[in-house]
């Protein structure tokens, strides 16, 4: 199987209306699994986090993890959904060796959250509203590894290994309503949507949200119809596109592939597709119809989940600010240039800068510390800047001492080094290292005079208008004073001497 014939993208968009629908699976980071007490940990030795319940031994029964319900409600609320006062789990019946019970316990016709919406802002500021149909709870399956055979798929494999550590890990599946009107920007919107979901669940700390570990997985539905046609076209569902770039590329590919087929009088097969990131194409999976018969029926081993209004409101009260809205608010409040702000966001330093500003520092000063000196130090120590042992309050204190003239920039860097070395708060470091700005101009003037005497031509040059010549003397003075003076003050005094 290789790439199929494609229609050029612009032509496809010109001829067809694009409709997309996204299903995002979020793995929750609860301590234990959805229906048993086993640890929910990624990467452990296979089949070590298992028990009679998650490997489906005869006689075992599920019991709902309350924390997982809480996280699911929180996700629903963050997506502007209504929360169902009562919701049953159902059984989705099908035979597959990664599914211990040969049915998946999942919410079906009674999702915990429904009817939400979320605004997605693209890079250039254009905003699309995406309607959320539902967010429901379910359990993950085990992980199959197919050994032998060329494709790494079950077909043709010699044998397969099953790891049930992942079986029963709590998932929330978020399903959008069909998204219309994105046109050429549909691929971009799909990626931005997944990015937004990832950012939201991460900000709430309900998921580790690492796409490379499968914490956030996306199935992308794409269909095309001629402009003006009311009936939706046949859709394909591209499974498990597991990076933002893949989401965008897979949607774009499907648009071009389907457009080519439709324009040549063909029909789209309703099926799942696999995305091959390395070579940039999708291939046919299994045929999928709306009549796939999973023989759903209400899970008789569980009582319905019935969150009280009080509990829902309690959860609502703990929700963090929507990440997008927060960025907008901070950008306005801080007045950074767009590049400066993006630097902070991309370095994941919004929390640090915000806290530093809250502790009294000016926004620009806070930004410079975190994206400048501190980022440099972290880089040289090979740790994340967020993990440096200095608090936003300490940074703000140091900045305050600079502003009041008690520390020079150079001394401040010394103080930071001291704090990072575990010498205590900035005040303690200043005390211990004897860092103090000399404010007695007498000693300073003496040092300046001494330096000027060694470089007699400097005063001449300054008088001739070459003010930058002062730099050479400033350096010498700073050295003589062991940095404990304000460079600006030194410059001021030199210029006075030259008058």
């Amino acid at each position, binding site marked *: 199987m290789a790439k199929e014939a494609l229609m050029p993208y612009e032509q496809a968009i010109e001829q067809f209306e694009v409709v997309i629908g996204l299903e995002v699976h979020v793995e929750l980071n609860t301590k234990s699994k959805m229906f048993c007490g086993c640890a929910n940990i990624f990467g452990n030795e296979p089949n070590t986090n298992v028990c*009679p319940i998650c490997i489906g031994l005869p006689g075992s029964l599920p*019991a*709902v993890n309350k924390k997982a319900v809480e996280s699911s409600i929180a996700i629903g609320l963050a997506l502007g959904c209504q929360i169902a006062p009562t919701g049953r789990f159902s059984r989705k019946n099908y035979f597959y060796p990664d599914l211990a019970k*040969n049915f998946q316990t999942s919410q079906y016709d009674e999702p915990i959250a429904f009817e939400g919406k979320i605004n997605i802002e693209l890079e250039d500021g254009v905003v699309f509203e995406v309607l959320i149909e539902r967010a429901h709870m379910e359990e993950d399956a085990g992980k199959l590894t197919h050994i032998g055979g060329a494709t790494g798929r079950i077909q043709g494999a010699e044998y397969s290994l099953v790891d049930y550590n992942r079986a029963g890990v709590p998932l929330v599946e978020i399903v959008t309503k069909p998204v219309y009107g994105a046109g050429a920007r549909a691929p971009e919107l799909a990626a931005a949507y997944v990015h937004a979901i990832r950012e939201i669940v991460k900000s709430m700390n309900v998921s580790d949200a690492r796409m490379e570990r499968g914490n956030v997985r996306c199935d992308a539905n794409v269909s095309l119809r001629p402009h003006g046609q009311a009936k939706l076209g046949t859709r394909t569902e591209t499974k498990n596109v597991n990076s933002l770039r893949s989401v965008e590329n897979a949607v774009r590919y499907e648009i071009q592939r389907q457009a080519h087929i439709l324009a040549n009088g063909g029909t789209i097969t309703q099926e799942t597709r696999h995305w091959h990131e390395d070579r940039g194409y999708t291939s046919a999976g299994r045929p999928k119809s709306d009549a796939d018969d999973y*023989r759903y*029926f209400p899970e008789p*081993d569980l009582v319905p989940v019935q969150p009280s209004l009080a509990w829902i409101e309690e959860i609502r009260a703990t929700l963090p600010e929507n990440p997008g809205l927060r960025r907008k608010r901070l950008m306005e409040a801080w007045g950074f240039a767009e590049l400066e702000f993006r630097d902070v966001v991309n370095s994941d330093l919004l929390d640090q800068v915000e806290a530093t500003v809250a502790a009294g520092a000016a926004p620009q000063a806070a930004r410079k510390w975190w994206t400048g000196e501190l980022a440099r130090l972290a880089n040289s120590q090979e740790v994340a800047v967020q993990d440096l042992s200095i608090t936003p309050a300490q940074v703000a204190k140091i900045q305050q001492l600079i502003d009041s003239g008690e520390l020079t920039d150079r001394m401040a860097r010394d103080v930071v080094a001291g704090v990072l070395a575990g010498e205590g708060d900035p005040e303690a470091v200043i005390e211990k290292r004897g860092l103090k700005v000399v404010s007695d101009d007498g000693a300073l003037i003496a040092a300046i005079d001494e330096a000027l005497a060694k470089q007699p031509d400097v005063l001449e040059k300054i008088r001739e208008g070459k003010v930058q010549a002062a730099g050479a003397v400033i350096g010498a003075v700073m050295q003589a004073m062991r940095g404990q003076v304000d460079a600006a003050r030194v410059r001021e005094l030199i210029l006075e001497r030259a008058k």
Partner: protein
Amino acid sequence: MSDLIHKSASELADLIASKSVSSQEVTSAFFDRSVELNPKTNSYLYLNRDTAIAAAKAADAALANGEKLSPLHGVPIAVKDNLTTTDAPTTSGSKILEGWVPQYDATVVARLRKAGLPILGKTNMDEFAMGSSTEYSAYGPSKNPWDLTRIPGGSGGGSSSAVSGHLAPIAIGSDTGGSIRFPAAVTGSVGAKPTYGAVSRYGLIALASSLDQIGPVSNTVLDSALLQDVISGHDKHDSTSLPQSLGSMADAVRSADVKGLRVGVVKQLDSDAFQPGVKACFDDTIAKLVAAGAEVVTVDCPSFEYAIAAYYLILPAEASSNLAKFDSVRFGLRVTPDGNPTIERVMAATREAGFGPEVKRRIILGTYALSSGYYDAYYGSAQKVRTLIQQDLAKAFSQVDVLLTPTAPTTAFKIGEKVNNPLAMYLNDIATIPANLAGIPGMSVPNGLAFEDGLPSGVQILAPAMQDAQMYRVGSIIEQMYLAEWGAPLIAQAPKLEVL
């Protein structure tokens, strides 16, 4: 002390508590008898002297330390083979689980151990509890101690056969549509299905999750009450287990009084469909209650007519899903077909070889009933019938304290008589199924021998949900009335197994 085996569990518990006899002596007596007679009755699929005697010794040691762990401390017990036990294979009567030793104890089993009851062995049953006679057990039928050519009822025929044959003083059963009560009726013993949720199902190999309930099997009403008290109570491993306590059943039995009792007879279950001798016993029970001062009225439960039809949709539907896990991947039988053994072919071959005909029949029925396009007509309609039955019962219980019916339409039938006629087999549960559909408690108490065949008959007592104590109270009243007439429990009239 050979007469130990004819004593009730409560009598044995008293003897053990007063140190007149040790748990080890009692356990040995039942164990030796079981080893001797099991070849005749096939009550047990598994017996283990070492674990039984070790548990009895531990019970004796605890008592020597002044620790009485429960009112049944030291009394040995038999456990139906669909409850998981870490020290004994658990097969649920199926070839597909032959030799499987579970990694965990069912909650009920753990509670028995904690209460100081030595487990004698695991009792026979219809495969996955599908049946009314044990003839669908993969390990051959159990026999009725009253007549070894007859069935001991099912699915819990191993437990009823063990208790009525004195191979165990008490036993654990499970009841999805009558699997405790029908066997009790046809063996002259007592059996109770508690309110749904009163006893944890954790570790019970599920037949139909919304109908299954574990309960006691015994020769006296007090023994069942004492056993229900030991095994009931909330379990965090079973979300459907009731959070609240239903009180002491033993207290209800001991304080039973007929005064003010209002009894309902269900119009739909008082017909000529019952064997005349069974009907005569039932009429006699009602006459005795009237004579004792109870008020008896007829109540109408029109939806009972649809109970069997609804039951045989809900049960197979749930069972088809519950039994999907038997796929050879993680435990149990694995059959690898010749040629190219793909996972699908291994699963299919295993299930083909491992499941018996009744199990396959119900899996097919249930799969069909849940299929897209048929769900509403079958499963959906059956759930509506369930609601209607609950409404009928609520209305009936607004007029009376309990409902009485004959437990079974006939006395014990001959082995082989109905095994090729599933519909006839299904009708055995006509009176017991409504309790499972509605989640209410029901028990069977012996009420005489049918005149035409001299075999035991039982009367069923149904009480409102969570009023298990009321059910035991009436069970005790009826038992006392018959004791006054017979001078001993009905079981004393059974032939001696040794000479059969």
